[in-house]
């Protein structure tokens, strides 16, 4: 079984793809059947992934030399592209995570999407997404990965705009796709350049060819181009703008795609080609700074948002910033570890939020919620566990992974980034517990009539809560199982107690501050908002970045379009097309005046011609001409 799973890992993405085909072609009229088909494909996929994991995590060889098998995809003189599977601890970890979290979310969706008109279509899209994501994770070739990258982007578009009768959903889907397109253009340029320079896009081959390449300037350019893709897909500043709007989609979509899996594809890509970035210190700096800044930036916006899913969206952007920061300081382990733990608690947060939205009939403003603990205990306490995890409270999973990142940042000699990241940890705890207190505790809102969600939704919540507690235990400093298997370079040993204590204190401080302001009587919150009104406005409007982009688009892109339109109308149409027509008509009008219809005019022209001929021939000088004139008389 283990051997089979390892050598046939391509079956894992294939199963959801078959579910997609099955649902869209066959079982659309029966939503229940579609749902079971989709969940079944994911669960079987999880079994395969777990079997492969057993095999991979018992073979230390695979850390340095991954198991790769591929077939020729297409080739022609000068171009050879393969498609295949690369199994190493990193990709196997991703396989397990995606299938496990995916299965739980699929099961949850059975309850959440029950009764929706497009329930079958939803599971079809979700299955397609799952297969694309799984394919991305095990790709052995960057072009193949790019194919799946675009595939997940497409599914994201389809799922964000799932309720297409809402204008906001349609706009959000377009925004997501277009923003990612801008980023993917850079990525594509990077891939093409990589192929031109190194002659291959196979990850293992590139890992052999790139270290030691002398032209670091070129490598920097390649790194920057390739990094543009993750900036868009993983929602880093400045292309983060699509993620909060993507919350228009159904909550399972937000949980699966915009928390646990697709948005981390960017982090995964950078992790896969970390050898390229590691060659150029400037590139690593860039990644670290972008990540660190995004983490802080998004956290500041999150503290002023009102809709529950938006707060979680900015939280996601911030946490992914942490993952990028970890990569930038050279620690693949810390980054992937945070990716792993984040998937569980973030999915839990979103699913619990979905449970709340389901109960309150889509009322999303947290200020209109309150005291949900009384009627929705399971949702509340699972949410609390996840909030504690993200705030970095030991011994929950979030603590271990966030701690690892902070420790590695300090160890790599980035004190500023360390301070920034630590402060962000404080902010994270603050805004998450602001949300928790406002929504779940305090006075109830008499307009709401909440009820607990059905078991098909609460059981996944409980399972995810359990995972949020335990999945971090594979990466503690005293048992660095994770760090030994998934690493880039040497294993990092030792525990930095200073960092551990400080991050815990920051987390607790954040929670206490939130409790102080928000837990019961809201007046302190309103007073605070009044006192810092300009700051509050800036944060509430997300630093006006969306407005800036809109202005940019209207001025430059629409302006350029207008110019080209005018060019088309006046020059192409007017001068060239109409001009040629006019010229033809005009010349015709002039030339027709020569047709007088008068016989004698024609005779005149005739004789003029004869005259000219005679003169030319005679004066031409050659005796032949003269002879022609004289008619050959001898």
């Amino acid at each position, binding site marked *: 079984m283990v051997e089979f799973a390892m050598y046939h890992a391509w079956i894992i993405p294939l199963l959801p793809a078959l579910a997609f085909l099955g649902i869209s072609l066959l079982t659309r009229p029966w939503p229940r059947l579609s749902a079971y088909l989709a969940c079944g494909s994911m669960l079987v996929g999880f079994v395969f992934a777990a079997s492969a994991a057993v095999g991979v995590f018992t073979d230390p060889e695979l850390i340095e030399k991954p198991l790769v098998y591929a077939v020729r995809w297409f080739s022609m003189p000068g171009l050879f592209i393969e498609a295949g599977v690369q199994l190493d601890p990193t990709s196997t970890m991703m396989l397990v995570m995606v299938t496990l979290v995916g299965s739980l979310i699929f099961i949850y969706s059975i309850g959440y999407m029950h009764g929706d008109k497009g329930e079958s279509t939803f599971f079809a899209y979700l299955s397609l997404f799952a297969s694309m994501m799984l394919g991305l994770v095990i790709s052995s070739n960057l072009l193949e990965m790019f194919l799946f990258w675009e595939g997940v982007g497409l599914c994201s578009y389809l799922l964000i705009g799932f309720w297409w009768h809402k204008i906001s959903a349609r706009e959000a889907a377009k925004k997501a796709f277009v923003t990612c397109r801008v980023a993917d253009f850079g990525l594509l340029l990077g891939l093409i350049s990589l192929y031109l320079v190194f002659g291959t896009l196979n990850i293992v081959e590139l890992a052999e060819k790139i270290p030691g390449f002398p032209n670091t300037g070129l490598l920097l350019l390649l790194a920057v181009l390739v990094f543009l893709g993750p900036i868009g897909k993983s929602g880093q500043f400045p292309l983060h703008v699509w993620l909060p709007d993507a919350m228009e989609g159904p909550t399972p979509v937000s949980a699966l795609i915009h928390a646990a899996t697709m948005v981390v594809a960017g982090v995964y890509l950078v992790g896969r080609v970390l050898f390229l970035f590691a060659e150029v210190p400037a590139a690593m700096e860039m990644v670290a700074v972008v990540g660190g800044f995004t983490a802080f930036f998004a956290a500041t916006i999150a503290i002023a948002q009102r809709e529950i899913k938006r707060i979680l969206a900015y939280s996601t952007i911030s946490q992914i910033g942490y993952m990028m920061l970890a990569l930038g300081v050279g620690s693949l382990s810390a980054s992937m570890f945070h990716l792993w733990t984040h998937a569980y608690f973030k999915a839990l947060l979103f699913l619990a939020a979905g449970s709340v939205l389901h109960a309150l009939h889509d009322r999303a403003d947290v200020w209109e919620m309150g005291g949900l603990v009384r009627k929705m205990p399971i949702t509340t306490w699972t949410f609390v566990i996840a909030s504690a995890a993200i705030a970095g409270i030991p011994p929950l999973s979030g603590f271990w992974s966030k701690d690892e990142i902070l420790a590695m940042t300090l160890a790599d000699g980035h004190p500023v980034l360390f301070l920034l990241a630590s402060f962000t940890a404080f902010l994270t705890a603050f805004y998450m517990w602001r949300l928790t207190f406002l929504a779940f505790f305090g006075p109830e809102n008499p307009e709401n009539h909440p009820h607990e969600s059905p078991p098909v939704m609460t059981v996944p919540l409980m399972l995810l809560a359990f995972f949020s507690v335990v999945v971090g235990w594979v990466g503690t400093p005293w048992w660095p199982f994770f760090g030994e298997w998934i690493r880039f370079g040497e294993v990092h040993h030792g525990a930095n107690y200073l960092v551990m204590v400080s991050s815990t204190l920051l987390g607790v401080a954040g929670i206490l501050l939130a409790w102080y302001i928000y837990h019961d009587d809201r007046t302190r919150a309103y007073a605070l908002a009044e006192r810092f009104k300009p700051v509050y406005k800036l944060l509430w409007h997300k630093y006006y970045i969306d407005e800036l982009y809109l202005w940019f688009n209207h001025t430059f892109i629409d302006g350029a379009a207008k110019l080209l339109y005018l060019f088309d109308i006046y020059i192409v149409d007017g001068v060239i097309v109409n001009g040629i027509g006019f010229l033809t008509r005009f010349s015709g009008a002039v030339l*027709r*005046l020569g*047709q*007088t*219809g*008068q*016989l*004698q005019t024609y*005779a*005149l022209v005739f*004789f003029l011609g004869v005259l000219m001929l005679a003169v030319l021939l005679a004066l031409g000088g050659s005796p032949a001409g003269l002879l022609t004139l004289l008619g050959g*008389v001898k």
Partner: protein
Amino acid sequence: MSNPVVAVGLNHFIVLSALLFAVGLFGVLTKRNAVAVLICIELMLNAVNLNLVAVNKFITPTAFIGQVFAVFVITVAAAEVGVGLAIIIAIYRNRLTVNLDEFDWLKW
């Protein structure tokens, strides 16, 4: 150089025929009546005939070509005059005019 008045040679005939041709040409190009144009064409053809016969006598008398050619020219000219006049009569029947200025139906 012999006296051009007394010694009449080929050149005299050629100049004479050129003069006749030019006079006929002038008539063709400027007369308004179609029949007048036709008779001026006849004048031109006769000038050509004169030319042919003169050259025949002075340069190739034994080959006799000029006179043969002239016979043919006369034949064709006669036929042409016949047909031409028939056409003019036909047009006159329809349009009641033989003024060439008014025969401009091929005008733009």
